[in-house]
């Protein structure tokens, strides 16, 4: 009897737990990517690992630096492929997409499950009611060998977002609002549970944008309910039985925050902290040199649809470069078939390989000194995109697209009248 976190963990160990308990739990799925797998493989070997506990429940994903731009990375990728084939694990190679899109899309992230990933945004699958959290490579190696991990059962902050979003305001704005109001360490060591009319009305993809950013408040997980939409989303993606886990009425929360977001304007995070969130009005007119639409936060089909709608028949401003990375091959293909990509390319955009793209500054799209970037990603730390002298603003795909056309930060509500 308890919060979603307590109930998922209790189900897994067959005994009732409560916040604060430290437990060893079985893990349902494990993920690592090309920035973290090298250390995972090293730790696995040093620990004396011979075989992987459940190779069909481990996905290795090449997305952060794909295709490889330098030989060092190429060699890491080669090792990852060798490790995957030696142990018979799942491998998603260059061009398949960003890890946090592939995990739900390929049916690996299921309601009520416990997932650990060697990437901090593993919390994205909370949108599918999975207790999913990021850990380091050594923790992941330990889980690969034993099928288990240790956890401190988190206490929970409950967020209830009611109302109806204005047109031109999207789930990313809700996510930025959440991070801005909780602050960058407001939920450290804790779980978030996110509810309300606004969440109910969003698609599963749009909910992922919010769960994705839970970690920017320090949270371990950002959990939502498993409703009909989640079941629909997973249809055809998994053959496993889908059964969500709810909180019970007697659940004890550390805090409950209830808000009506009907008046929420588009939100922008200013450099260099994710929680420096302001209404778009405060930054309107700031010149933008590069716009990046993509990442595990906002590279999904509906994000590209919104962007294409804005770009349709328009041109990106002369001073601005536009880079777009679909979050997966499936999304890329659908966007191609729907004519979305044609609209973006005609407007002057560049489409790059499904994957992380310029998000973490490892490949193309590195901004110059003193340039301003408007990105749909989840982090704007100094140096994040590969140049510590650049300035990164974060916003929704709509704000990003409309600002790309104007060359300055603009309010997308103007096009969604």
């Amino acid at each position, binding site marked *: 009897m308890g919060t979603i976190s307590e109930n998922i963990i209790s189900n897994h160990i067959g005994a009732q737990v409560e916040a604060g308990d430290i437990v060893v739990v079985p893990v349902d799925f494990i993920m690592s990517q090309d920035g973290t797998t090298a250390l995972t493989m090293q730790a696995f070997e040093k620990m*004396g690992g011979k075989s992987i506990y459940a190779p069909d429940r481990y996905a290795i994903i090449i997305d952060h630096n794909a295709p490889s731009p330098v030989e*060092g990375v190429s060699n890491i990728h080669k090792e990852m492929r060798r490790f995957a084939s030696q142990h018979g694990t799942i491998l998603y190679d260059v061009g398949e997409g960003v890890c946090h899109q592939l995990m739900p899309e390929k049916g690996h992230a299921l309601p009520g499950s416990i997932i650990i990933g060697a990437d901090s945004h593993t919390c994205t699958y909370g949108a599918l009611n999975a207790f999913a959290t990021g850990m380091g490579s050594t*923790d992941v190696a330990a889980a690969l060998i034993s099928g288990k991990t*240790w956890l401190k059962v988190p206490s929970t902050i409950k967020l209830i977002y009611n109302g109806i979003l204005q047109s031109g305001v999207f789930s990313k704005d809700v996510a930025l609002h959440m991070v801005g109001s909780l602050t960058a360490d407001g939920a450290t060591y804790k779980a978030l549970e996110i509810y309300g009319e606004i969440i109910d009305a969003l698609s599963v993809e749009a909910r992922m944008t919010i769960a994705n950013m839970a970690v920017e408040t320090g949270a*371990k997980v950002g959990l939502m309910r498993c409703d009909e939409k989640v079941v629909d989303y997973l249809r055809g993606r998994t053959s496993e039985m889908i059964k969500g886990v709810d909180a019970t009425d007697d659940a004890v929360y550390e805090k409950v925050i209830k808000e009506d977001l009907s008046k929420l304007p588009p939100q922008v995070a200013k450099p260099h902290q994710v929680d420096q969130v302001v209404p778009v009005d405060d930054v309107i007119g700031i010149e933008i040199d590069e716009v990046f639409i993509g990442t595990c936060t906002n590279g999904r089909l509906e994000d590209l649809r919104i962007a294409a709608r804005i770009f349709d028949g328009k041109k990106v401003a002369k001073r601005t470069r536009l880079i777009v990375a679909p979050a997966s091959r499936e999304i890329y293909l659908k966007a191609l078939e729907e004519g979305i990509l044609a609209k973006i390319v005609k407007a002057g955009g560049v489409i790059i390989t499904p994957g992380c793209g310029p998000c973490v500054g490892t490949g193309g799209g590195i901004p110059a000194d003193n340039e301003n970037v408007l990105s749909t990603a989840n982090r704007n*730390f100094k140096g994040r995109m590969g140049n510590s002298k650049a300035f990164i603003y974060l916003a929704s795909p709509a704000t990003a697209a409309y600002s790309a056309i104007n060359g300055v930060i603009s309010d997308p509500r103007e096009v969604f009248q």
Partner: protein
Amino acid sequence: MNLLRGRAHRFGDNINTDYIISGKYKFKTLDINEMAKHVMEDLRPGFYNEIEHGDFIVAGRNFGCGSSREQAPLVLQAAGIGAVIAESFARVFYRNCINVGLPVLECDTSSVEDGDELQVDLRKGLIRIVAKGTIIKAKPLPAVMVRILEDGGLVEHFRKHGGFKINEEG
């Protein structure tokens, strides 16, 4: 082993793992010692050369937030940092430190200034500012973590026990 001594290098709040080691290096090399030369360089260029073996990083709130990269504690360790002392830590970083065997202490760091000589008693969780004589008490680590740290990190813990051995003391 449990008594450390070194100088404090002061940092502020919300020092993220991108600052500790930029993502661009993580992908270039597997060589932690090579990466260590770039530790904190976006915040403090040349920081690597300022570190003497056994020095401490002393910071404010939410140290190590951001990515789950384990390179962050490894790089600090390779750069010669003996322990990280902060008001609070981001959870994955904290866990990673224990797993790789880099000591972390959570306490009020407001009285520590850049360059202060510190003496740290890990077992007791006590930090002494040598010149001022001030003693700061750190929060005790959870028992699981003490266990893993005493084994020398999670790798050694697994080698020794063949799996998790953390619950038997209750």
